[in-house]
């Protein structure tokens, strides 16, 4: 389903990262970066909560809007019971916790935008976070194990990113959004998430073009969340072969966030809910403010993956939500 918005604007963003993201090509665009993955806390989980708190504080400072004026916070992360968001957003406005895996960044923006468009609220914050070590611990092996990984595996980004959406006019407008559907293409390799999530990206992209009657050239840039370099190629090829749509202005946030040549530890690229948010809220938002890009379609892809059900021989499903940002 595609929604159109007339009255929703992106007012301010904030991005906090860990050391690996800082070393990447977009390092200079972030508001703050930690050198250590503990962020001065006693455990990685508490470090992630600190990232969320920092991100909200920086957002309030940058936008000069106090936290008492925020009507709604929508937050999501990868931890069990989405604890990083719930502990981090304590004491800030009304709260909705969401889980869309790596697609949370756009899902949060869509929920806040719908609330604003309907007139129920004036200002809302969408926040996401992820932490490389906490998700390694939760989804894969212990953090110090260092299990060998194939080239197709992706690296969960560390950081927290939040954006303030309002009904007051600003330079960047949220134009429309397409909600995703759960896709099952019989994929079950947790070390190749690009392959798992690409079908969801393709499905949402095709439905978005069908609903709006647009073609890829309408946008200056089409961005997927965290497919990695192999997933990116799959989307391009499949769109061309099956749907006859040539994607020439297309890129992937997971590929843009890191220098894949130098940072070998990230393998195929970044992943995690914050991966796409870090790129869009910093670098892409800057380009939109400078009017170097006018229309951007941002698709956050998520693998709805549970190690438990994978061991019970179930497939990994995926989902992808899209949102279109325009310069006013």
């Amino acid at each position, binding site marked *: 389903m595609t929604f159109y918005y007339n009255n929703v604007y992106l007012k301010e963003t904030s991005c906090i990262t860990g050391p690996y993201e800082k070393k990447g090509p977009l390092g200079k665009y972030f508001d703050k970066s930690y050198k250590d993955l503990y962020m001065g806390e006693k455990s990685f989980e508490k470090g992630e909560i600190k990232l969320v708190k920092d991100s909200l504080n920086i957002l309030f400072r940058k936008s000069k809007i106090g936290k008492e004026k925020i009507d709604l916070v929508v937050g999501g992360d990868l931890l069990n019971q989405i604890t990083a968001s719930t502990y981090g957003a304590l004491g800030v406005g009304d709260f909705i916790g969401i889980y869309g895996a790596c697609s949370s960044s756009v899902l949060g923006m869509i929920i806040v935008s719908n609330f604003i468009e309907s007139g129920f609220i004036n200002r809302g914050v969408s926040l996401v976070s992820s932490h490389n070590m906490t998700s390694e611990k939760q989804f894969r092996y212990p953090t110090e*194990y260092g299990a060998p*990984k194939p080239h197709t595996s992706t690296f969960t980004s560390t950081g927290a990113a939040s954006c303030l959406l309002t009904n007051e006019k600003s330079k960047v407008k949220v134009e429309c959004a397409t909600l995703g559907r759960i896709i099952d293409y*019989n994929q079950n390799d947790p070390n190749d998430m690009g392959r798992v999530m690409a079908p969801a990206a393709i499905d949402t992209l095709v439905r978005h073009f069908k609903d709006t009657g647009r073609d890829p050239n309408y946008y200056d840039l089409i961005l997927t969340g965290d497919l990695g370099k*192999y997933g990116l190629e799959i989307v391009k*090829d499949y769109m061309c*072969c099956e749907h006859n749509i040539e994607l020439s202005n297309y890129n992937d946030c997971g590929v843009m966030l890191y220098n894949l040549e130098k940072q070998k530890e990230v393998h195929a690229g970044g992943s995690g809910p914050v991966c796409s948010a870090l790129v869009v809220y910093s670098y892409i938002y800057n380009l939109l403010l400078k009017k170097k890009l006018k229309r951007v379609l941002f698709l956050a892809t998520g693998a709805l993956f549970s190690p438990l059900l994978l061991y019970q021989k179930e497939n990994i499903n995926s989902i992808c939500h899209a949102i279109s940002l325009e310069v006013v």
Partner: protein
Amino acid sequence: MKNTKYDKIADFHKVKENRLGNGIVAFLCGGVMGFLAELTIECFMNWFKISRETSSIYMIVIFIFIACLFTALGFFDKLVTKFKCGLIIPITGFAHSVMSSSLDSKSEGLIYGIGSNMFKLAGSVIVYGIVSAFIFGLIRYLIGGI
């Protein structure tokens, strides 16, 4: 839903892992580990005039200690990523898996953290090690007697 067209395109973009290269690295690293172990055994036998059996027990204890220490110091995971099965298959891999699991859960305390999570990875090795030892022991007894 199975989509053969999608699988075909996805397979085309799948990179092949360098299995031969990984195998050679693991083989050489495993060989070096074996050499070091033999060297330690020989040294103990000659220095302390003890039997080969006792000496190999000391060697195992020392290797386990070194692996645990390196894991705790935080660089054994980087070695494992580099040398892969050359370090995972020997006793060092077992020690590393126990140590990394306990380090991972140290923030949850001694009982609910370290105690209950220590054998998260190594548990199946112990269980099936004992089960297979029992089965093969039984087969040996049935065929050849005690």
